[in-house]
């Protein structure tokens, strides 16, 4: 790319002369912008797929959920609540270590651990999912109102302050004390404390986005509100919503474990991961019986870690700043 030189002056034979004519002006070409063809959801999905860890975990979790749902219908499965008797002695088959008959062994009263663990997983997952969904609905509604309506803003802020500052643990305890332990109690208690985080996030985003310049710009261009919400606000919100929902599940399970420990959890007749871990805890002094603690712990750890990673990965993928 040097300076004009004699050589160039000499390259002027007939064929080259044509090149020095005016090129036709394509107005549309001029207006064409370099980048286009962007679809938010496609980009999100593609970004997510790039995270191999998250994708693997997602597949494994889905497999687990599927398994857990069909497990009772598979052949050779035992009942999670039935107390099994040792054929030789006629007494309860207590604390049997894992063997061919009882794949995960039995617990201290002779129940099959394998089926109990999967039943417990079902319960815990169920609680987690219900809590996540209900929390989301309540949280989004309140958060949206909080952020968008300037009238309700003050009142809701006060309500929020109260809920936010009472430690969740305390509320859970109180709820369980007041309402007697059961699945619905736990769900209600967790929803009451859980919607707060979601509402706050939603509200913050809406407040920021509502007044952001590109939204003002959209409004001045006459874009209908529904489209503003769909195209401008929703993409940001989805990532937060998905994140919170997926984090709600580990948290719900954790709360359940805590409550059971204190004695306010589910009754023993309803197996749940919390119960199982506590049963295992009681026996932890004897090394051979530790499998009763270990198996539920592993399952629980796997579920919680997976949801956490998947949730975060999805939130990262959904963040428009990370799109190509």
């Amino acid at each position, binding site marked *: 790319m040097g300076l004009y030189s004699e050589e160039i002056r000499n390259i002027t034979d007939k064929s080259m002369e044509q090149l020095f004519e005016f090129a036709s002006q394509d107005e549309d070409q001029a207006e064409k912008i370099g980048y286009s063809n962007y679809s938010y959801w496609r980009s999100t999905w593609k970004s997510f797929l790039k995270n191999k860890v998250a994708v693997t975990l997602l597949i494994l979790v889905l497999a687990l959920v599927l398994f857990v749902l069909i497990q009772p219908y598979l052949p050779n499965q035992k009942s999670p609540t039935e107390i099994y008797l040792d054929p030789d002695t006629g007494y309860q088959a207590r604390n049997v270590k894992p063997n061919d008959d009882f794949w995960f062994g039995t617990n201290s009263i002779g129940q099959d651990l394998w089926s109990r663990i999967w039943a417990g997983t079902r319960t815990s997952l169920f609680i987690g999912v219900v809590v996540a969904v209900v929390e989301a609905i309540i949280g989004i509604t309140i958060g949206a109102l909080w952020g968008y309506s300037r009238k309700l803003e003050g009142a809701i802020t*006060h309500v929020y302050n109260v809920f936010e*500052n*009472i430690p969740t643990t305390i509320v859970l305890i109180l709820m369980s004390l*007041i309402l007697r332990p059961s699945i619905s109690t736990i769900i209600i208690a967790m929803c009451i404390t859980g919607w707060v985080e979601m509402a706050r996030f939603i509200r913050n985003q809406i407040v920021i986005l509502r007044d952001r310049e590109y939204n003002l710009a959209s409004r001045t261009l006459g874009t209908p509100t529904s489209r503003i919400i769909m195209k401008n606000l929703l993409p940001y919100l989805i990532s937060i919503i998905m994140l919170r929902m997926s984090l709600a599940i*580990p948290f719900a399970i954790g709360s359940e474990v805590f409550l059971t420990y204190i*004695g306010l959890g589910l009754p023993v007749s309803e197996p749940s991961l919390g119960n199982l871990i506590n049963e295992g805890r009681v026996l932890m002094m004897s090394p051979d019986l530790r499998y009763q603690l270990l198996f539920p712990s592993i399952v629980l750890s796997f579920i919680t870690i997976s949801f*956490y990673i998947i949730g975060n990965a999805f939130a990262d993928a959904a963040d428009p700043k990370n799109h190509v």
Partner: protein
Amino acid sequence: MIEYIGKRLLQSVVTLFIIVTAVFLLLRLLPEEGYLGAAADKMSPEQQEIYLTNLGLRDPILVQLGNFYVDLLKGDFGKSITYRTDVPVMDIISDKIMYSLTFGVAAVIVSILIGVPLGILMAQFKGRWLDRLGTGYIVFIVAVPSMVYFLLIQVYITDFFNLPMLFDEDRPITWLLPLISLSLGPIASYAMWMRRYMVDELNKDYIKLARAKGVKERTIMFRHVLRNAFIPLSQYLPATILLTITGSIYIESLYSIPGMGGLLVDAIQRQDNPLVQALVLIFSSLGIIGLFLGDVLMALVDPRIKFGKGESVR
């Protein structure tokens, strides 16, 4: 600055008031057996009624609320039902506070000493193995319910190292595991927070100018970024201490440490309402107090608040 602290004080008091009232009302819903204790069987329903009325539990709600605040200001939380019958609740609690407080403070100190450097290293080696390892640790700690890994640690580590399981005031070796367990969570928090802060700050304009000035990267990291980090850090410090005390509920139970958290678990299991009440109120207030103290600390340290009229950049 005084203005700022004054405003925060007012806010905190109002919020505290609202919370305490709300908790109080909630506590009214506790099952009434909790006020009767062991004597319940021996009393006829009429006697129970009289007893409860004497405690003021049949008065209209607002009256109860009023009495409650009066008692509160006197420091009277009532008497324990089951724990040590008829002993004022405050006496019981004050015995235990030292344990929880000591563990809480110690855990926070350890967490900062380990967590903050870890976060710095993770930011510096972003993407490399140390960062990945640290992130793995954080994910585990945050995702898995603390109860689970507390248990696993207690069970397997004591076995492995042949340590006694329960806390014993006279044997320092038993202090180790509870302390470590209690610190695991805060370490993850501090590391995660620090890493994020460093990564964000290192991209800011004033850092770019410092580089253009010819300042070494290492100097930038310590003299600029790290120094600046202490301001937001100090804001959350008191709150962390107080929240760690709350979080020690599990640990105290597991290791039989005679602290406030364990007391709460006990009280619940025994259905000792006055005791539960007092503890719940204390725990609920700790959060607000911690936040307020943190704001004060930050006001003392952040020049933007000290010398400006601005609000803190929370």
